[in-house]
């Protein structure tokens, strides 16, 4: 019992921090209300999906620098397809495209033996170029119902639809996987590759699948990006460093094997609400970018310092 409490202490702490920050927001901006949470969630959607994808590959012991580029590819694909065909098949195609890109990343890493960080850096540019090839300038259009799908509230008056989309999207993939043997293999590979190999885990295949899942989440991120803006934007958004920071803040150790998706998602909301607070304090949005950047770099540095200490022992 105490052990499981310890395991969840970090996530609980993050949750408490988030609630404190909401209280703080209410303090600096008394008009902040449930509608504020709704727009916060909506804006956080692409960031949250990118973070989920990044978390999965970090858990398997890798890192994927191409998340933002893959999201851009998916966003423009969605916008272009939805102009020409019905929304549902378009969404399915986009999900398949994301999965495919992720799998390609994984296969390249496993086959070429080029380290994850270098291979996905190269792929960052490949996918960025691909997005530009699909749509040279922002354009296309998403179906109206897609946009409506993440706006407003769900059933009861205050529950943001975006949160439903987020939870359902992430849970559909992760929940059945987490407790399955494949999920265990992902944790095992990230935790200790040699021990995993000795325990009979097909290490290479597990890595490829983890990258595939990352691609799938990026597709969801790209879709929500398209839904947010109503068009397809071929230039990758600032999601790379942000997702790494959220993953680290969320308790997933760079190097793999530890953590889950809940922590990083809460971390996303924490990072987003800091931005809201700064906005409410009428800080220059550019200064906000700087502060956010500094927070992210600090978080990543902290994570690196902790990892380093852990391995050095």
């Amino acid at each position, binding site marked *: 019992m105490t052990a499981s409490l310890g395991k969840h202490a970090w996530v609980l702490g993050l949750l408490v921090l988030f609630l404190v920050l909401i209280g703080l927001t209410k303090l600096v901006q008394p008009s902040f209300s449930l509608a504020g949470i709704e727009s916060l969630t909506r804006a956080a959607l692409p960031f949250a999906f990118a973070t989920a994808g990044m978390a999965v590959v970090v858990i398997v012991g890798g890192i994927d*620098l191409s998340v933002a580029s893959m999201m851009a590819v998916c966003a423009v694909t969605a916008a272009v397809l939805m102009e020409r065909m019905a929304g549902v098949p378009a969404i399915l195609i986009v999900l398949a495209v994301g999965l495919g890109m992720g799998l390609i990343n994984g296969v*390249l890493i496993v086959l*070429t*033996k*080029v*380290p994850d*960080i*270098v*291979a996905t*850096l*190269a*792929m*960052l*540019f*490949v*996918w*960025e*170029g*691909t*997005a*530009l*090839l*699909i749509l*040279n300038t922002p354009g296309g259009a998403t179906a109206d119902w897609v946009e409506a799908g993440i706006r407003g509230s769900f059933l009861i008056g205050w529950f943001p639809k975006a949160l439903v989309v987020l939870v359902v999207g992430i849970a559909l993939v992760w929940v059945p996987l987490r407790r399955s043997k494949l999920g265990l293999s992902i944790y095992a590979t990230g935790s200790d590759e040699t021990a995993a190999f000795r325990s009979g885990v097909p290490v290479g295949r597990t890595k490829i699948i983890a990258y595939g899942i990352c691609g799938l989440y990026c597709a969801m991120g790209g879709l929500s990006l398209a839904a947010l803006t109503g068009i397809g934007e*071929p230039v990758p958004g*600032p999601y*790379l*460093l942000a997702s*790494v920071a959220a993953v680290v803040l969320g308790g997933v150790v760079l190097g793999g094997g530890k953590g889950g998706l809940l922590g990083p998602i809460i971390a996303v909301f924490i990072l987003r609400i800091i931005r809201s607070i700064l906005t409410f304090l009428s800080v*220059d949005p*550019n*200064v906000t*970018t*700087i502060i*956010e*950047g*500094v927070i*992210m*770099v600090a978080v*990543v*540095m902290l994570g*690196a*310092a902790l990892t*380093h200490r852990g391995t050095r022992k």
Partner: protein
Amino acid sequence: MSTTDTDPPLLRLGRAMRDNPLIPLVLFLFALVVLLEVLRPGIVMPIRSGRDGLISTFWVGNLIKFAIPLAMLAACQVLTMLTAGIDLSAGIVATVAAFVCATLSSIWGVAPAVLIALATGLVVGVVNGVGVGIVRVHPLIMTLGTGLIATGCLQVYQRLVINAGAEVPTFLSWLGTGRTLGMPNGLYLFVPFSVFVIWLMRYTGFGRLLFALGSNENAAKLSGVRSWQVYIALYALSGLIAALAGLLYLGIIRQPSLSLANPLLLPSVAAAVIGGTSIFGGRGSYAGAIVGALILRVLDTMLTLLQMPEGARTALFGLIILAVTALYVRITGAR
């Protein structure tokens, strides 16, 4: 184990290429130039399209002029890659330096403006060095992060100086656009610069340590090298070089903007990799990177002629980096 005689031919060829990367690179450069001439007769050799001159000094001068800032940024990548690092903030640092210089020149005069521009590069570099050398963040993530922060700072700064107007110092435009005997004046800066970089790599203790850290950090450690000192000096130097490249680029483009040199970042990594610098550290040549920069410029001209869209070019550069790295892993069995 000296098993040189029994190594497979691919390995031996790979070694030969690694030992003398310059020769095949230069041959490749010439092959590209010939191909370009075939695609568009007369562009390199005007005589073939009935104009004067065997070789177009204008074309060659232009090629070199635009290759220089790229080659300077590639120096940042070569030096950091020697230690298995990378500097992804170089493009933004160049942009910031150019912007700061252009805006401050009209307020405080040229000399302080240039000094402050170089100092910004130095500051970003020191932060990178601390992150990489002391906190041990992966250089890729660290430089990406400082780049992001620098971009934010640039935007804030732009709002502050919005009414000041911009002015490109005359000596920078002289360096950037002027020509002497048909060759760009940028060479006045670049030739001493490249000699310095090559000298630094080959004939100084600092250069030795760069190779040593990338080749085997543990060996360096047991020889008494405190690696954090080297990392901080290295990234500071890299920031300084990036700022210098930004100033020169400002002289060439003569129009400061918030994303002036950013598009040069990826090609600078590609130029270093093509030039035989290993992204895993311990091996690299600046001469190779210079030829790599020239190759990329010719390739760029060619892709423009073929009307290849920008997206395809970006993707192609990414694939080149991946392919060269994968080949390197295959040949040497490194990591």
